[in-house]
């Protein structure tokens, strides 16, 4: 009666190279050809644009990580995240100018201390704001149909935009210009300025801190457990509500850091910029694989580079008019053809 399993299994349902794979590879190949042609035509421009893309990519990474952390734990696209970032930028601008009294062009040690102080304040502000939003708008809906918190997230996003509008008005606000623009190096006409390097220098420690927090600490373990299985974690004695609040706090703090960097690097902010940048950062998170921390950083840098190449290169680049469309096209293509992202794995089957 006992039947032994026979081997080898018939590989009937193994994937053959499908239309999507071929199409995707063709697209990537064309992209590479385009990049190489540009590199050959204008090598020094190419290198500088690459460095610009890396810098914006860093800012995107900080925002994208917030999306990924929240999505990982609640499976919620926190549409309000970009607006938290925007308020963080506005807060940074205000604190830097009014509290620390920085003025454009100022330099010296006092600038560094002030920037550091502003960073702490912006991170604390955005973290608290984000955790409050979760408490007020998402927590009561935890057992509601999935669409309910998604809809409140959109609502909160609009509310925050209007808070920014009421606070700073409908126009761009100027931010003090304190990051030095002197050169770090100049190799064969390729210049790299300090303000770009500072963005990287602030981003990297924050990222390391985050990884340490998630991988090594108790709270981080609780976060990962809750992301895996909320009910089981609750049964194991993890305070799920506190863990979720903590996640929003961290995500908000990252957005605050991004806000500060954006404000100081770009030196202007407007109330509706958060939503747009948030969508770009979300695309980055999806590109890297939602829920995957290194993925979010990789995705963000890719998006930063794509944006910079599109806007900066001269040979057959669509130009800044189309940046938004290109980013969304990437988002759609990724979601449709590789929803697990570049680094993600397919979700284990549920249902």
């Amino acid at each position, binding site marked *: 009666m006992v039947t032994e399993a026979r081997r080898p299994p018939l590989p009937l349902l193994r994937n053959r190279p499908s239309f999507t794979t071929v199409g995707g590879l063709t697209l990537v190949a064309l992209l590479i050809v385009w990049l190489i042609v540009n590199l050959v035509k204008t090598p020094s421009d190419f290198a500088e644009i690459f460095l610009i893309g890396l810098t914006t990519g860093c800012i995107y990474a900080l925002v994208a990580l917030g999306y990924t952390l929240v999505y990982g734990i609640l*499976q*919620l*696209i926190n549409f309000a995240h970009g607006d938290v970032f925007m308020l963080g930028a506005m807060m940074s601008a205000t604190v830097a100018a009014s509290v620390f009294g920085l003025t454009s062009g100022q330099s010296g040690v006092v600038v560094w201390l002030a920037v550091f102080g502003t960073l702490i304040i912006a991170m604390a502000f955005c973290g608290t704001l984000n955790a409050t939003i979760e408490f007020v*708008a998402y927590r*009561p*809906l935890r*057992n*509601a*149909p*999935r*669409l*309910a*918190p*998604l*809809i*409140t997230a*959109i*609502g*909160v*996003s*609009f*509310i925050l*935009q*209007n*808070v920014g*509008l*009421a606070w700073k008005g*409908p126009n761009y606000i100027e931010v003090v210009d304190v990051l030095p623009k002197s050169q770090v190096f100049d190799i064969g006409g390729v210049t790299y300025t300090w303000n770009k390097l500072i963005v990287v220098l602030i981003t990297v420690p924050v990222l390391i801190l985050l990884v340490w927090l998630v991988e090594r600490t108790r709270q981080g373990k609780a976060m990962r457990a809750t992301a895996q299985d909320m009910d089981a974690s609750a049964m194991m004695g993890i305070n799920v509500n506190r863990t979720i609040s903590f996640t929003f706090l961290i995500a908000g703090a990252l957005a605050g850091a991004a806000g500060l960097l954006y404000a100081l690097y770009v030196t202007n902010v407007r109330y509706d910029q958060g*939503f747009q940048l948030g*969508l770009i950062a*979300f695309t980055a998170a*999806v590109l890297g694989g939602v829920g995957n921390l290194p993925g979010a950083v990789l995705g963000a840098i890719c998006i930063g580079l794509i944006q910079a190449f599109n806007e900066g290169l001269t040979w057959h680049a*669509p130009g800044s*008019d*189309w940046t*938004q*469309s290109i980013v*969304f*096209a990437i*988002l*759609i293509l990724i*979601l*449709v053809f590789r*929803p697990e992202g570049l680094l993600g794995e397919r*979700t284990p*089957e*549920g*249902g």
Partner: protein
Amino acid sequence: MAIRRRTGFLDPVRERVEVLERRVLGDDAGPVARRTFNRGLSAVIVGFLGMLILAPLYGFSVAAILAWLVFVVLYVPPWEVIPRVGRFVRPLLALSLAATYPFYALNMFTIPIFGAFPDVATGVKMLVFAMMAIGLNIVVGYAGLLDLGYVAFYAIGSYTVAWFASIQFAHQNIHFWPAGVPSSLPGIHISIWLLLALAGILTAIVGVIIGLPTLRLRGDYLAIVTLGFGEIMPQVARNGDDFFGTGFNLTNGPNGITPIDSPGFGSFTFLAGHGSFFTPDRLFFWTAILLVLFTVFCSLRLRDSRLGRAWIAIREDETAAAAMGVPLMRTKTWAYAAGAFFGGIAGGYYASFKSATFPGDFFFNISVLILCMVILGGMGNIWGVMVGALFLEYLDSEGLANTGAWLNSNLGLNIDVPKYEFGIFGLILVVVMLFRPQGLIPSARRKAEFEVGVHDEPLYNATHG
């Protein structure tokens, strides 16, 4: 999951009402008598409160009393008990009230805070948005797919009408039954009536094209992808006057396409009207009512059909629906196409009414506005969605400005209220979702759903066909 009964501050009132009801009707009154009694009571209370507020402010208004009487006739008597014709009484009464609105709009009373009743041109906008909201309701309310890019369909409808009823393609000279367009005018000029049908069909086709790759995604991913399409659309419209330097002018860029032909017959156009009776606004208004009627009719028929049942089944439990032989992808795509169809017609009609279409009309805000209409009114219930749409579009075009003016003059503030329009709509979304997720006028079904929650585990591994 247990059904949580919320205790509210109105509970003592409710108890009193029940006691009163027993005293008047006796203990064994039927549900119809009880409902009529309750409705009569609330009508009296509304009338009394209304008078209390209105009379000292504006004096006695005949219009207000008449309006109250109409409300009583519409709301209180148990019309539905009349066999066969009973269920048509309320809709027909409401319809005739709406159709005659242009005649009494100017004689209506002033509502405190909100100000005067909307004028007829605003009425057209309200109806157009009602049509879009009912269309979106098919996607969100019936099939449970969150579409954040509905504005894309509105845009496609608008541009379809704009291309084929204006001088945009001036090197062409095609005329096909346009109303009141001299044959010497360059460009393509096709009858608006045909174009509305074309706009609906084209938009539905685009809906299918967008839907096929994306509808297999889980609900929240679908939301963000539709949002992406909604964001790409105005950018294409804005940059479409010179596609990547090819010189081809599709959309006339930020300047938009204007003027657009007006609907009409032969040499008679809506824009010119006819005498003091057929004013342009009235003509557009009545046509808009017909379009809304058409939308409501189709939407109701669809809800009660095989397809409508399949949509609701998918919303409730995808896996079970698929196991019952419902093809998920195809059925969802139909919902998408049907929703898009009405969005396209509404967009096309609106473009013809405004005689213009601009890229700036199609931002994400508008998608959220329409979504807000559906949610405020009550997902899944056509009447609720219609009320939500009429009210929010009224706020959008007149109400908020009036309210702001009232606030500023009476409270001594200086706030530009319409500037915060979308913050207010965002607040409405949050408040409705937190406190009354079924909306103001819920469908019985949706109400039940929000009380118990649903199985909402998506079907991961299946390739739905």
